[in-house]
């Protein structure tokens, strides 16, 4: 849960910095569903046997690599030109999320039932049944990414000022953005592989962290967001167990709270 917390928090904060807004997160832009799609397509193309017989770490590395390439392409395409309207981007995110989701379910319908069962098993890992082997591997991966992010944090502060200002201050904007996107893709992959899509968690913790710390500096915001994210996950799990008696999924609770917050943000954000 801590691993997921770190991954979701860092990827969301980085994504917001790189795109220069406070409303979009990888979850909202459909990046996590992209990961599900990639996983589904692998089963579709190679069959379930590959999924079960290949070393899960190797498989995961392959999926993540594909994910990195796709998310870079998607980013270039969506954010390549400046001055995109925020609402267009949100809409694009919703459309992409749905598109990736429907493509996944289409592919899931096309594969044979045995393969589907295997796939479903790997997709709906959930918070309660995480594969310990994969967890250790993920923890190492996320730790490595977190260190990488920490080393970038001073330059990320500058990138948050926008491309022109960053360039003027001698920061290689494109290079930092690319590094951040790789980190984002890996972290989203880890989080999604472990617990499935949790769309609004990142948004919730990234914005709360900025609000509570009242600063833009990544050195402060990143740890704060991570802490919040772990608190929300653990707290949500507690609510789930105590109040709902395990009758629902954790992501339902988080998405409910996060979704409400998202709408509030959209309404408050002045149109520009």
């Amino acid at each position, binding site marked *: 849960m801590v691993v997921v917390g770190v991954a979701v928090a860092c990827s969301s904060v980085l994504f917001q910095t790189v795109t220069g807004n406070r409303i979009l997160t990888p979850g909202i832009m459909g990046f996590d569903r992209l990961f599900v799609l990639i996983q589904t397509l692998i089963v579709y193309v190679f069959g379930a046997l590959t999924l079960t017989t290949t070393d899960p770490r190797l498989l995961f590395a392959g999926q993540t690599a594909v994910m990195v390439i796709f998310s870079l392409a998607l980013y270039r395409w969506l954010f390549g030109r400046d001055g995109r309207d925020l609402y267009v981007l949100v809409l694009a995110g919703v459309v992409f999320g749905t598109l990736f989701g429907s493509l996944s379910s289409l592919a899931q319908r096309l594969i044979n039932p045995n393969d589907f069962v295997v796939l479903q098993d790997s997709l709906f890992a959930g918070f309660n049944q995480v594969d310990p082997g994969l967890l250790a591997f993920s923890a190492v991966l996320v730790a490595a990414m977190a260190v990488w992010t920490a080393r970038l944090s001073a330059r990320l502060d500058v990138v*948050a000022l926008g491309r*022109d200002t960053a360039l003027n*201050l001698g920061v290689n904007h494109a290079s930092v953005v690319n590094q951040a996107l790789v980190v984002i893709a890996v972290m989203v992959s880890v989080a999604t592989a472990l617990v499935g899509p949790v769309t609004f968690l990142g948004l919730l913790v990234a914005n709360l962290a900025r609000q509570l710390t009242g600063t833009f500096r990544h050195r402060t915001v990143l740890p704060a967001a991570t802490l919040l994210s772990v608190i929300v996950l653990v707290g949500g799990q507690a609510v789930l167990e105590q109040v709902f008696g395990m009758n629902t999924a954790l992501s339902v609770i988080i998405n409910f709270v996060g979704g409400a917050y998202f709408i509030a943000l959209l309404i408050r954000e002045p149109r520009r």
Partner: protein
Amino acid sequence: MIEIKGVTKRYGETAVVDDVSLTIAPGGVTSVIGANGAGKSTLLSIVSRLTPADSGTVTVDGLDVTTTPSEKLARRLAVLRQENHMSVRLTVRELVAFGRFPHSGGRLTERDLALVDEAIGYFELDDLADRHLDQLSGGQRQRAYVAMVLCQDTDYVLLDEPLNNLDRRHSVQMMRRLRRMADDYAKTVVMVVHDINFASCHSDAIVAMKHGKVIAQGTTEEMMTPKVLKEVYDLDIDVHDINGSRIGVYYA
């Protein structure tokens, strides 16, 4: 020395900057004038590597701006664009402190902090130093941005309409400050200015652009004539000598 050789930039069919070659000598204040859409801002952002040119080269002290590492250039050349929008909430002091980033890499030394305070004091931002940028008026914000760029302490300073949103007093102060930087510290200031009289009173040389080309350049005396100004702006402008400066009259 800034050397621009055969620089062209097109947006679709139209050449915004059309085969411009220009040399700007080190030291002194150079103003770039011209009508809206003449390509002044685009040229400035090509020189400062913010916009890639389609063809041609720009060198600053012999360093090609497209191939020189960005952080090296940032200690030599600073630029302020016409419009600055930031998605993060910063205080004035935080913004100005970013000007020291090329030198300190995010860890401010005593000297950096002293320079930040000096820049804030110079632009009369002391009372506003801890306010957030979104709580300031346009002119106050403009002063904060210029303070950041000057805090960068570079040999070359490029400014795109530094007088944007400034009232008369702050405009004059800004120009005097830029003038003094050039005189006392041998810095090279290049700026886009719309008010030709500010250009006339405070700059050593003037470059005039029209339709993406440089149509005239020279010393202020050579440029501030009705004939040249007519060519640049398609407007009859009388030029008078007032208190030792050449002033164009075009309001009526």
